[in-house]
């Protein structure tokens, strides 16, 4: 079973291109079709993954692996997702510096860089929609952004404050409701 999990997730890792959430339909097709998990169980695992730090694809693999065959399963599934991208990046890292000596690679990347900026604005817009940001609730991320961007506050600190802020806000509103 661990070997089958490893191979399944290697294949999933190979076909995940552009963003972690791209793995969801792939895993769903493979895992649910093999009856390792039911659809409901799978969606519950996705919800759990959203509140975990780290890499989404590896996290969901770890959870599925654990559910199917314990610690061995989680290790082999997690390694499976890493292995293919790992070797591809090693190959690229080994040859990229040489490739940059060709002027056409440099030209292509001059065109690519501004497009990459756009490709990150796009998930930012989705995150704004997903959080249903209003002018009022938008104050928090806007303040965080200014602190990090203009005042060089560490993003690590901002995440800690985000956690604490959520808890404090929850306690304060709960008290108000009680009154």
């Amino acid at each position, binding site marked *: 079973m661990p070997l089958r999990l490893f191979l399944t997730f290697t294949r999933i890792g190979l076909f995940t291109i552009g963003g972690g959430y791209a793995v969801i339909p792939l895993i769903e097709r493979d895992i649910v079709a093999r009856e390792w998990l039911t659809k409901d169980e799978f969606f519950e695992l996705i919800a759990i993954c959203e509140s975990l730090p*780290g890499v989404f694809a590896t996290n969901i693999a770890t959870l599925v692996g654990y559910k199917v065959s314990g610690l061995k399963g989680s290790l082999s599934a997690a390694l499976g997702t890493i292995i293919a991208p790992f070797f591809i990046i090693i190959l690229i890292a080994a040859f990229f510096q040489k490739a940059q000596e060709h002027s056409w690679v440099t030209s292509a990347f001059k065109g690519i860089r501004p497009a990459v900026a756009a490709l990150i604005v796009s998930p930012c817009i989705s995150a704004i929609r997903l959080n249903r940001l209003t002018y009022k609730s938008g104050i928090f991320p806007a303040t965080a952004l200014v602190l*990090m961007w203009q005042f060089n506050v560490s*993003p690590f600190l901002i995440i800690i404050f985000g*956690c604490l802020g959520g808890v404090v806000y929850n306690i304060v509103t709960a008290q108000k409701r009680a009154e």
Partner: protein
Amino acid sequence: MLFFRLSWVFIKIGAFGFGGGYAMLPLIQEEVVEKNHWMSKEQFVDLIAISQMTPGPIGINTATYAGYNAMLNAGYSPFMSIAGSVVATVSLCIPSFLLITLISLFIAKVRQNKHFSAAMTGIRLLSVALIALAALSLMNSDNFIDYISIIIFAGALLLSVKYKTHPIIIVFLAAIIGLLIY
């Protein structure tokens, strides 16, 4: 001791990287580019582009590349550099792996805890700021060299937001424009 440094940095990124790969970018940039100089700013942007085109999560891709580059820049052999990427990549996955293994028994209860879900709401709200920071930090004169860059940016944004074009296609189109113009 570069191994320990690599490991510690990526454990930290793995432990604080909430909200998906894009929200993780500012953490990676602060540690890998600004503090430890394992990659230049240009290499970081190019790596994001490469990540969009190659399989695998952006976090894994950056860890692998940073590990390799850090060792190579410090004068180690390519073979040792591969060991560096193994250390960085595995370290990135350690915190959530431990977390899952430790709490998988009562993870459902943790999620129902009201303080926990409040903290998650706070983080989710801030992930907007983290992704915006990643985008803003790319909008500088290194990446936007002339008015054509702005046209490429606007075109890519339109394709991505309005037409949901796949990132690979957008990167390829931008590369072709780059080849034709520069």
